[in-house]
């Protein structure tokens, strides 16, 4: 059984029939080639498959493709600028050495990006809570936490600059 859906990935519009059995992860990876989203546990525990749906993180392995109808999806491929310049969050992950094998990184960068975009301020404990749906088996999380804090500090600073009228 197939169902026609319309949605966007990283700003690009799509409209086609999906198999009702497909997960969003399978559709993104196998059909559209967005292989930045990884398949880890397949049951929503590890967060490697996380993508943003309308700006909020979801585990795409337990999200049916048909549910993407009308949604704006962001994958890790859509985070850097079109010219290939890394986003502030990606830079923070590089600077803090928050990446080792890289399997968990796309999900963590996306969840951190969602936090930055929310414009809210987070305590250290709240950052930990927001990142708790991602498992990393390499880093021990310290670098990741620092990278997330740096990303959020940066966003606060840039907003402050905007408030002060400094548009770079």
């Amino acid at each position: 059984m197939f169902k026609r859906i319309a949605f966007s990935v990283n700003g690009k519009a799509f409209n086609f029939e999906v198999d009702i059995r497909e997960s969003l992860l399978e559709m993104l990876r196998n059909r559209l080639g967005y292989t930045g989203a990884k398949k880890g546990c397949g049951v929503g525990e590890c967060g490697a498959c996380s993508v943003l749906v309308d700006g909020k993180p979801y585990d795409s392995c337990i999200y049916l493709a048909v549910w993407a109808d009308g949604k704006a999806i962001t994958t890790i491929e859509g985070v850097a600028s079109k010219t290939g310049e890394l986003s502030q969050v990606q830079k923070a992950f590089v600077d803090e050495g928050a990446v080792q094998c890289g399997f968990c990184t796309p999900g963590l960068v996306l969840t951190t990006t969602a936090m930055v975009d929310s414009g809210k301020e987070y305590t250290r404990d709240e950052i930990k809570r927001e990142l708790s749906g991602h498992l990393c088996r390499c880093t021990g999380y310290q670098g990741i936490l620092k990278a997330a804090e740096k990303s959020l500090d940066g966003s606060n600073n840039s907003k402050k600059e905007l408030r002060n009228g400094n548009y770079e």
Partner: protein
Amino acid sequence: MYDIIGYYEAETVSEATALLAENPNLRLIAGGTDVLIKMHGGQIEDAELLSLRKIKSLEIIRKAEDGTIVIGAMATFTQVFHDPILRELIPILTEAAISMGGPQIRNIATIGGNVCNGATSADSASSLFALNAHLKLEDHQGERVVPIREFYLGPGKVALKPGEILTEILISPADYQGFGGRYIKFAMREAMDIATLAVSVICKLQGKKTFDQVRIGLGVAGPTPLRCLEAEAYAQGKEVSVETVAEIGKRAVNSAKARTSWRASKDYREHLVEELVQRALKIAVVNAGGAELV
């Protein structure tokens, strides 16, 4: 690929109940964090799904004119946690909501799905039991309201009749006004874990020194979530003291039907019941306007 052979979507409750009446084999899917996992594990095969995800009316959380709190079954855990009404009036439910899974799961998992999945470890259950929640069930012919204690029949078994959909969770003012509460989830990790024991306690005082009512909801203390009715009856009219609280903790164990599982032994769970009921109750007393017990 999931083992799905049919997929239907409803946009209103009446559309959903009509579809369900036509085809009783349809399996309801809300957030999918239980249904899809079961499919992944081979426990559900050849599924014909009826999705409730497009029924926007079921996402609403509100306070009715008579003070009843009405939580739409499709409200997500993220929504429950952030809802200003629930945070103010029944924080034991919002605390339970934030203890569940991680952010990605809370963004999609629904409170109605959590209840209908029938697990004793459902993170919303102990609080909904303590709050004496009532469930509105609708089918194509009408609706009925059942107390949550009568809804849980056994592990994974709930009193949803064929054709019925849980649409709203109701908490009446008599069950929350004047109460103070505390929720404690005991697990090995602080996130992404299933409770070893969940305790939700609310209490109401007469003056500052006498228990008027105490309600204790437990999760993972038996095959279904449960209330500690013996301890609750004992508490009524008793002086608020360390001794009374200790006795309530002991009596709470009598209502628990703990068993040994790979997560914890029966003895350990009973120890947790006795200890955590006391800890939760002491904080609930303060939240109900009483003095701190030392």
